[in-house]
């Protein structure tokens, strides 16, 4: 079934690249660095210093990127706020956990516990913006962003809302890095962190998200379905942007026919749970600069599960 697309009205990021920067200024991260942290902006234009002092870095970045992207889209308060985070406010979780393990189960400070649930991000954005609309948080590891995007798309297609603020964020700490470093998945590229925001709308204009789905089954079946339901063939796809790390074998994306251009984005944002949100931002940046209509498939793979996001732009010139 061909469904109506939703449109990216604006996107923005705070990550290892210069905050809020665009494609022209993206530069590959140093390959020797084990962990590359966010380049934080001056938060004062977005959050009063008195308020931001009490916030952890992931909430601060999420609020700043949300305000930035809403300004770009010319929206004050979104109809819905949908968040994706792989591991949430892990810094506060670590502090509360260590206090409990070191000092026993007494005299614990509640403030770290309060901030440690993943939905702190989405609810703090809502409290800050005074947005009482739909609010949800997806936490499915490397596919937390895709879950949040799919829910956004469903609400927009149904017409339950006219616009959605979609925010994907993860933070990296020394403690978490020390644990993730044991897993091959996190090797070969700097481990990083980031917050990426989008304003999505069901009114036409801008880069379109035509389809989003993830599958634990055969990835080539799912790609075939996406192409068929959108009345497309492989020749209509200008590029496949994958979650591959630089130098990684593209074997897991063997279903992409030869001759289709393959691009990657993690050389710019590093590896983190919701990096695919940066991948979507990257697709949008590339499409906007083509000067003609185009189509990009964003494809990710982790532990045998694949996700696909089909994006397109229509040239109006």
């Amino acid at each position: 079934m061909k469904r109506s697309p939703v449109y990216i009205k604006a996107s923005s990021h705070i990550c290892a690249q210069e905050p809020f920067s665009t494609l022209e200024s993206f530069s590959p991260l140093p390959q020797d660095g084990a962990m590359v942290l966010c380049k934080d902006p001056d938060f004062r234009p977005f959050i009063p210093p008195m308020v931001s002092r009490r916030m952890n870095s992931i909430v601060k970045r999420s609020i700043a990127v949300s305000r930035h992207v809403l300004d770009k889209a010319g929206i004050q308060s979104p109809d819905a706020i949908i968040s994706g985070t792989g591991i949430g406010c892990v810094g506060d979780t670590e502090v509360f956990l260590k206090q409990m393990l070191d000092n026993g189960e007494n005299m614990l400070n509640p403030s770290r516990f309060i901030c440690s649930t993943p939905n702190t991000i989405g609810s703090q954005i809502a409290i800050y913006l005074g947005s009482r609309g739909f609010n949800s948080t997806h936490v499915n590891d490397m596919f937390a962003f895709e879950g949040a995007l799919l829910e956004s798309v469903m609400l927009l297609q149904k017409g339950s809302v006219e616009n959605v603020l979609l925010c994907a964020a993860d933070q990296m700490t020394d403690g978490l890095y020390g644990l993730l470093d044991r897993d091959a998945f996190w090797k070969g590229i700097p481990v990083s962190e980031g917050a990426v925001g989008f304003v999505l709308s069901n009114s036409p204009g801008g880069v379109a998200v035509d389809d989003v789905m993830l599958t634990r089954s055969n990835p080539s079946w799912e790609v075939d379905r996406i192409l068929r339901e959108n009345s497309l063939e492989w020749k209509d796809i200008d590029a496949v942007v994958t979650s591959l790390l630089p130098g990684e074998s593209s074997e897991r994306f063997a279903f992409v026919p030869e001759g289709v251009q393959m691009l990657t984005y993690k050389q710019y944002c590093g590896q983190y749970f919701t990096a695919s949100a940066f991948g979507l931002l990257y697709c949008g940046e590339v499409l906007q600069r083509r000067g003609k209509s185009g189509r990009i498939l964003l494809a990710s793979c982790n532990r045998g599960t694949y996700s696909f996001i089909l994006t397109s732009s229509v040239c109006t010139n």
Partner: protein
Amino acid sequence: MCGRIAITGAGIVSALGTGLDETCRSLMENICPIAPPKHLKTIHSNLPCGEVDLSDAQLYDLCHEDRGRVLSRSSLLGIVAARQAQEDASLVPGDRVAFINGTTVGGMDITERYYKQYFQGSDYDALIPLHLDGVSTDAIADSLECDVVFTDVISTACSAAANAIAMGAELIESGRFDIVIAGGTECLSKYHLNGFNSLMILSQEPCRPFDAGRKGLNLGEGAAYIVLESKAHAKERGARIRAFLSGWGNTCDAYHQTASSPDGAGALEAMLKAIQVARLQPSDIDYVNAHGTGTENNDLSEGKALMSLFGDRMPYVGSTKCFTGHATSAAAGLEAVISILCLEHGFVPANLRFRTKDPGLDFSPVAEKKENIKLNHVLSNSFGFGGNDSSLIFSRAEL
């Protein structure tokens, strides 16, 4: 539009027992399992909980899982409930299913046990990923016989399972899936018992929702899932329909990270949305399975919202957390299954230990169980930290 999403299966494990029959019997017989924790190793023996009375070892046996494979207690509870739901709906290999899980604690029980060892060597490296909500969710999906081709995990604290069920409903309504298993799982852990204790909202006695003398909540644990299908798909495969999910509403109170607004604005809005989606009137609601945690703040705020919504035509209102404790991210799953049992068996469980009406509220909850009554529509509330308020409406199968 009532009856668009059919519920063709349900599974539950909680302090009330394992399975639909045991749960129903415990509710009918006013059996209150809230007691000091037995399986959770904690110094807080003064804090009664709604603990599932099965050790991890017993849960492994119940799941037929190899004890050599480490699983979080959330996963083990989830496997028990999800398999029941699958069997209840007669799902078989080849059925293409989406699994939407609500959880927050995830594998914290494993992390808090081994965290220090993680930094002292590599012996426990394989356990590190179990912390992730997605990994504990995939363990449940992998244990099912039907083809779970899609998983998603929602964490909106104490309303997570309600939002998982709503996401499932959207997947069906949009035609993306014919069958969805949705609900939530949460195990007791030292981390979240101590977290709630640090907030000073835990009661040292079994909780008394809506009572003027209430002293806080009891944490609980458990897992519960329901099988959602489009009505057409359920009829086509001849599935037995237990009830319908007819409405769902989600709002954000946007007031405070851990407190509800005094007038219950977010709660009221969530209930109104659910009623609107169901194309019903407030007067159609026969029973409200309240969030009713037993904290001063929640019950007053939720009560005010109920008064605004129903005025002087208050339906039966009660909280079943006096039986199960507050199973946080799994709570809305447990209460979804309990709401379905109430519709099927025509009863409203007692709001146990209610003695004195709250002077701030002009209604009392159902102090005594009501039996042999006909319920058409049950509204179930779940409100989470951060003001993540959600309401679901379940409707009788024979409407």
